[in-house]
Each structure stands twice: as structure tokens, then as C-alpha cells.
């Protein structure tokens, strides 16, 4: 019997799990995928929004601004790459400028600090590679970038360090109440819990239905992205937005915390929640949109493209409520959800407390989590020391990102460690570079098989069914 069961191990679920792990509670996180952050969290813009976008008075506005202020500390505590690079919303005409003035005022109302409307000269002096027809911009110095999946993994690891259990590859089939206890039927058996949190992302509406909460729907909205080689990662240093239209926030161009550049996303409503394919039209749209802002984007420099799916609620604002006694929904957490999640978590915990969950602070709560320091990021002394202890750090496996066998093994051996090729990639970046695993993937497969003590044929790219090899040769 658990005190709290959290359904979903995306950025929302892992934030809540970590928050709960501060207290003396038995907590379990139930995730249908084989890894943390395998849904919308792994494929989004990775932007920590300043908070001028969301309409005054909404949950989005409230938690965005709160979250944005919490980010730096959390990323420091959890050793996650985060950079306050600032963001610009570009205006290309008078109408855009008016909109930007409105965003500026909205930002002030929402409590965003360090906002400024700047003119063309200032814009171009900050970012010389922007298109010349820019006329001005809203400059938000508190805008930042983060690696979303690394943050979710870090939150999960830290929660796990503090005693939270994770059930991966575990799909919730049915939830019902027996007396005051939630009975959660899964493909891996039945879990019982006194309290329940629905952080099921795209599928939060299904869970809400199981809980009998007031109806809402999650509408999947696709966003396509192109990721560029590090060689062009410096075209812009800030995150470049366009003035939003009624169609959405427009295509953004941004550096990533690892020095790449991305362009995206578009926004296409879909009828399926599991279709993460990209389309020719979408990728063209994204590239064209990015080129409206920035000069010198060349399709030749693209190293990969991908689709993320937003969990858009039909109610427009985040849905954070009580579907049934002793449960909390944290649903429809679309943009600025990544930013907001860290602030939503303590609020969700307070809603549990209001319903009777006793919160007794753990005396031995471990507030910090140390990431595996990649060999390539070590100082000369650290390199020599680690090499003297473990020769595996002397073998480069991923040539593009200079990731060593030692780095990969440690990603596998960590708490909630990598269990698939994609898991390795997201933890230590092997396969993230310009050759996209062309060279290192066979080697990563070998290392996974050896470390997990499984045959090569059982090593997977990601989830169940994503096998890489089909059998032995004749």
C-alpha cells in the first residue's frame, strides 16, 4: 500500500514525485513507457519562459512566473544544464510592435522582471544574424533554456534517491476505489494507494475519466522541429520568438544548452496521440518560419528532425483540480508547462495535504543530485584521476560528442539508469551528434548487452518492440 501513486513520469510527474519525496511517504510513480521523459517531455522546445505570454489571471501565468523564478535553483540542486540566455520576441511591422507593447504590459502585470522593449538597432546589436526587416523586439532577460528530458531524469533520480519507487513499462488499465483506497490495475499487476495524482500528459483525460472527474479532453497538437549541427549553434545566442498571431506563438529559433540550434515548432491538431511522425510539409514550414527571423539557416546543417506532441486541454488553461476525493489532476500542462511544472508540484502537494495527506518532512532528505560528469567536461586533473581508476574513460564511443565508454556505463549503472539506446543518448548524449549514432550505435548496443547481461537481440532502441537486431547470421 502506497501513500501516493503518481501516474506519469514526464516533467509534471517527476516534479511532483520529487516534491513528495521531501516527506515521510510511500510514493510510487507509474509510467507506461520504458523510460522517464519518453512522451511530450522528450520533444519540446526546452524553453524556460519568462512569463509575459500567458493571459493575466490564468494558472498558466501564475505558475509560469513562479516556475521561471525557481528554475535556476532547481537546476543547480540537480546538476542539470540550464542557461539564462534571454529571449527576444521580434516585431516586423507596426502591428507587431503594438502586440509587443501589449505583451510588455502583460508581463509587468504577471510579475515578470527585467522586461524591455528595444528598437531595431539594439535588436541587431544583440543578435546580428537576425533578418534586417526586424523593427523592434520585446527583450526578456529572464528567458532561459534547459534540457527538458535531462531535468525530468534528474528529478526522477533525486526522487528515487529519496525513496520514491518507479514502475516503468507499466500501463494503467483501470482505476477504481475500494473504500477509501485507489486500486490501480496495470499490465504489471495491481497497485493500491491512498492518494493519487494524475500527471498522465496526453492521456490525462483517460485517467480523469477513470477517476470520474469532471470531463475534459486533451487534444494532441503536433509540433515539428529541426535540430542543427553545433557548427551553426552560434547563429543566435538568445531564444528568438516571433510576434504571436492567432495561430500561435510562431516558429522559434534557439540555441540548446548543448550548443546546437533548433527551429520549430509548428502546431497541427491531430486525431491520434501516439503519432510522432514528422511530415514534409511540417518540416518545410518550420524551416521557412525560422528563416523569417534568422539569416543563414541552411537545410544542409540539419542533423535530425522530430515531432513532439503538446497535451493541449480543451479548457485553454492548465487543469489542476480534484477529480475525486483524495486525487489531484495535473493535466493539460502544455506550454509554458515545462517552466510551470516545478511550481505546479508544490501546489499539487498542497492540494493533497488539504485532503488529509499528512506531510512530515524527512530528516534525511537529499536535496541535491549529482549528474555523471562527462569525461569531456572534466578538468585535466579530473580526467587523469578518472582514467587512473577506470580505463573505460579512455575509450571514445561517440565520436561526434566525444562520449567515452566510462560515461555510457555510468549512465546505465545510475539509479533509474539507461535501459535502451535512446536512454543512453538522453543521459549522456552518445548518438546526439552530427552522425546521429551512425558510428556508435552498434557499440552502444554491445555495451548495453554486456552491462545488462542480455543478448544483443534483446537490446532496444526505446520501448517494447523497438528491437534493433533480428537474429544471428547463418
Amino acid at each position: 500500500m502506497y501513500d501516493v501513486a503518481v501516474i506519469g513520469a514526464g516533467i509534471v510527474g517527476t516534479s511532483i514525485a520529487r516534491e513528495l519525496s521531501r516527506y515521510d511517504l510511500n510514493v510510487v510513480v507509474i509510467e507506461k513507457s520504458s523510460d522517464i521523459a519518453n512522451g511530450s517531455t522528450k520533444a519540446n522546445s526546452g524553453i524556460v519562459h519568462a512569463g509575459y505570454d500567458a493571459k493575466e489571471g490564468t494558472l498558466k501565468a501564475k505558475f509560469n512566473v513562479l516556475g521561471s523564478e525557481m528554475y535556476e535553483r532547481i537546476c543547480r540542486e540537480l546538476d542539470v544544464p540550464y542557461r539564462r540566455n534571454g529571449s527576444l520576441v521580434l516585431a516586423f511591422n507596426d502591428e507587431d510592435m503594438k502586440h509587443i507593447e501589449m505583451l510588455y504590459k502583460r508581463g509587468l502585470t504577471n510579475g515578470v522582471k527585467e522586461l524591455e522593449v528595444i528598437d531595431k538597432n539594439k535588436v541587431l546589436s544583440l543578435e546580428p544574424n537576425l533578418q534586417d526587416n526586424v523593427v523592434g523586439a520585446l527583450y526578456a532577460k529572464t528567458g532561459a533554456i534547459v534540457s527538458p528530458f535531462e531535468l525530468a531524469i534528474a528529478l526522477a533520480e533525486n526522487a528515487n534517491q529519496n525513496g520514491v519507487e518507479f514502475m516503468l513499462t507499466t500501463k494503467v488499465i483501470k482505476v477504481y476505489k475500494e473504500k477509501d483506497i485507489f486500486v490501480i490495475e496495470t499490465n504489471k499487476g495491481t497497485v493500491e494507494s491512498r492518494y493519487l495524482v494524475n500527471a498522465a500528459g496526453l492521456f490525462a483525460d483517460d485517467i480523469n475519466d477513470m477517476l470520474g472527474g469532471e470531463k475534459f479532453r486533451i487534444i494532441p497538437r503536433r509540433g515539428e522541429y529541426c535540430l542543427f549541427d553545433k557548427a551553426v549553434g552560434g547563429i543566435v545566442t538568445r531564444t528568438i520568438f516571433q510576434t504571436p498571431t492567432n495561430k500561435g506563438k510562431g516558429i522559434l529559433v534557439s540555441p540548446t544548452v548543448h550548443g546546437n540550434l533548433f527551429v520549430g515548432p509548428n502546431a497541427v491538431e491531430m486525431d491520434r496521440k501516439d503519432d510522432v511522425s514528422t511530415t514534409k510539409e511540417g518540416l518545410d514550414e518550420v524551416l521557412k518560419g525560422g528563416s523569417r527571423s534568422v539569416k543563414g539557416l541552411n537545410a544542409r546543417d540539419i542533423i535530425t528532425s522530430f515531432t513532439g506532441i503538446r497535451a493541449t486541454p480543451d479548457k485553454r488553461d492548465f487543469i489542476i483540480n480534484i477529480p475525486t476525493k483524495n486525487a489531484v489532476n495535473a493535466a493539460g500542462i502544455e506550454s509554458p508547462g515545462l517552466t510551470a511544472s516545478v511550481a505546479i508540484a508544490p501546489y499539487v502537494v498542497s492540494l493533497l495535504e488539504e485532503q488529509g495527506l499528512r506531510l512530515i518532512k524527512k530528516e534525511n532528505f537529499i536535496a541535491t543530485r549529482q549528474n555523471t560528469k562527462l569525461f569531456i567536461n572534466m578538468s585535466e586533473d579530473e580526467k587523469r584521476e578518472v582514467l587512473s581508476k577506470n580505463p573505460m574513460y579512455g575509450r571514445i564511443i561517440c565520436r561526434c560528442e566525444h562520449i567515452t565508454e566510462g560515461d555510457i556505463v555510468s549512465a546505465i549503472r545510475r539509479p533509474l539508469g539507461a535501459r535502451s539506446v535512446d536512454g543512453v543518448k538522453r543521459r549522456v548524449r552518445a548518438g546526439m551528434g552530427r552522425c546521429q549514432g551512425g558510428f556508435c550505435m552498434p557499440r552502444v548496443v554491445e555495451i548495453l548487452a554486456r552491462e545488462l547481461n542480455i543478448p544483443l537481440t534483446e537490446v532496444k532502441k526505446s520501448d517494447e518492440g523497438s528491437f534493433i537486431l533480428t537474429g544471428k547470421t547463418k
Partner: protein
Amino acid sequence: MKKDLVIIGGGPAGLAAAIEAKKNGIDDILILERDKRLGGILQQCIHNGFGLHIFKEQLTGPEYAQRFIDEVEKLGIEYKLDTMVLNLSENKHITALNPRDGIIEIDAKAVILAMGCRERTRGALNIPGSRPAGVFTAGAAQRFVNMEGYMVGKKVVILGSGDIGLIMARRMTLEGAEVKMVVELMPYSTGLKRNIVQCLEDFDIPLLFNHTVIKIHGRERVEGVTIAAVDENRRPIEGTEQYVECDTLLLSVGLIPENELSREANIKINFITSGAYVNELMETSVDGIFACGNVVHVHDLVDYVTEESYLAGYGAAKYIKGEYIKDETGFNTKTGFGIRYVVPNRINPKNVKDKVNFYMRVNDVYHNVDLVVRDGERIVYKARRNHVSPGEMENVKLSKEVLEKVEGSELVFALEEVAK
């Protein structure tokens, strides 16, 4: 550590360069190889057809490599395996890493770049669709099948008719997989004619020209691909889409010289070949750094890699011994009609031993043309070609005497219509 000559890469290029440098009097040589054995990518090319020019016989890749490895051993040339070069500077300082020695710092008098090339991947093509398991570059698949003994799929579509893709079509078929088709964007193959015959035609595997893969299907593992015909601008033609069920997509869509280190050393890179500009001794734009093989331009035949690498080894030896003449004498090579690139890019005839072999690729398929080399209006060389294709590298040998007589500042390589 100080070394006279460091060679980065122990594949066919690095091995031949080392041997030739040693034979020309350089003893203090070190080869750095990132794999666990010498021989490079040849070790996974277990088919035959290697060595027809150099040895006048048919060898497999590992056999071809072994001849050079044996000679390196016999000559006592030092090498380090499992060793990755992390950094190369303009003043020839090298930082490398391996499990045995840890971090290795070397100052070299001369460096030969022989890092070879890598395959273009799906990302570079930006093929839309999902991102399931089952999409491999042909070379990665070849490694699994030939080195590890594992199959990568059962029903295969191959995109691109590069040589590795053609070879893998046959290999997968022999291992019991069903290779449904090879689709090629261009109206001609980028692979060798002999591979099309021996690897596709002999096994009745269809080769569709002017086609490409426009979408990949399948959530966890590939379930199929959509192919379509393309127009003369290489754009898919609406209405020609066709779904092909398969569990594997192999990509053989081109090779890219691996010049990350060269860029760090500020070596000038040719936009067309993606390799360094080189001169008559295969020296790059940086003094004392030479380059040879697929890191300079992608070859189809290892024999030519070997020849080119002998030259780089000879050049580096001359440089170290101080016998290399650096003056303003000489001329640039230039491409004219029909020629996409030519290597080397600059010739100083004073340093030429007896001849220079100019390697080049044409930019389209042509029939019945003359390959002409001109010094101004004067024809230096002219030879009939019945059929030329971008997939088959052309070469022209010009002797030292001929090169010494060039008066202009440019030697132009071009295709010309045969005079009626």
C-alpha cells in the same frame, strides 16, 4: 612526446602513407587508430574486388588490409590502437586518448590526416516520418552482419545506390533476408557498375532510378516506407507514392570526409569535396599537415587511396628531411565543363617525383566525350571516354615533364564534345 611523423588513422590510407614515409627514410613514425585493430573499414568489407590495380588480383577487404598491416609490422612502424585523437592544432600538437595510456600529448614535425569518411545519415536527408528502430546506415548494418554476426532485419529497402548499399543488398540476400528494392534519387547510380551487376542484377533486386523514400512508417520498429518518383529537380511527384512494407531501411546515400580535426587545425576545406585542398605532395593549406584517402575526397576504389597515400607519405618524408621546395612556382588546377572537382588543387612541378595522378569526378552521365586538359588554349592531354558517370572516379596521369611545361596559372580539366 615528440614524433617526426604522426599519422591519424590506421586504415588503408594511413597504412600506405606510413609505409612510404618509412621507405623514404623516416623512422620516428606513430600511427593513431581509433579501432581495436588496423585496417579501418576494410575489415568489415568481406567481399572481394579489392586490389585489382595495385596487386593485379582480387582480394577481400581484410586480405587487402593485411598485406599493409604485415608490412607495417615488418618495417617496425609504431602504432597505437583504440586511440582517438581529440584535438589537432595548427602547430601540429595532437591530443589523443586511449584506455592504456590515458591522455597522450604529441608534438609532431609533420602530420598525415587519414581519418577517412563517414556515412550520411537519415538526419542529413531529413526524411519525414517516425523514428523507429530499423533505420541503419549501410555501413552500420555491415558492421553488425559481418563483424558481430547479427542480422539487422528481414525485409529490407535500401535508399541510395552507393557501393556499400549495393554490397549489403547482396549480403542481406545471402543471409536470407528479402531485399525488396534499391531506390536511387538520381537517374544514375553512385555505385560501381560491377556492383550493380554482381549485387543486384544477379539476385533480381530491382533498382528504381529517380525515386526516393518520402516517409518512414512504424512506431517502435520500421513497418514500411513510402516511396515516390521524383522530377528533374529531385522533388517527389504527387500521385506516384507507393507504400512498401519492410522492417528495415538501409541508407547508402553518400559519404562525407571526416574533417572535424582538420577544421580545428584551420585547414582550408573544399566545399565541393568536403575535404582539404591539397597540393602535389598532398600537403594541406597548413604547413606540414598532409592528407590522403577518403578524408580528402571519397574514392570508389581502395587502390587509388593507396596510391594517393603513398604520395602523402613521400611528401611528408620530403618535408621532414627539408627537401621540400616551397616557392611560388606552379599553377592551380581548375574544373571546366562537366567536371565537379579535381584533386590535387595546386602543383609545383619542382616537387613532383615522376608524375601526378589527377583524380576527378564528372557532374553527370556523359557519353562519347573527350576528357581534355588545357594550359590556356594549349591541349596538354586528351583522351576519349565512351561513358563517364559521377559514380566512377576518373583519373589522368601527367608526367613531370608535361607539368614543367605548363605556362599559365591554371590547368583546366574539362569534358568536350567529340569533334565530328
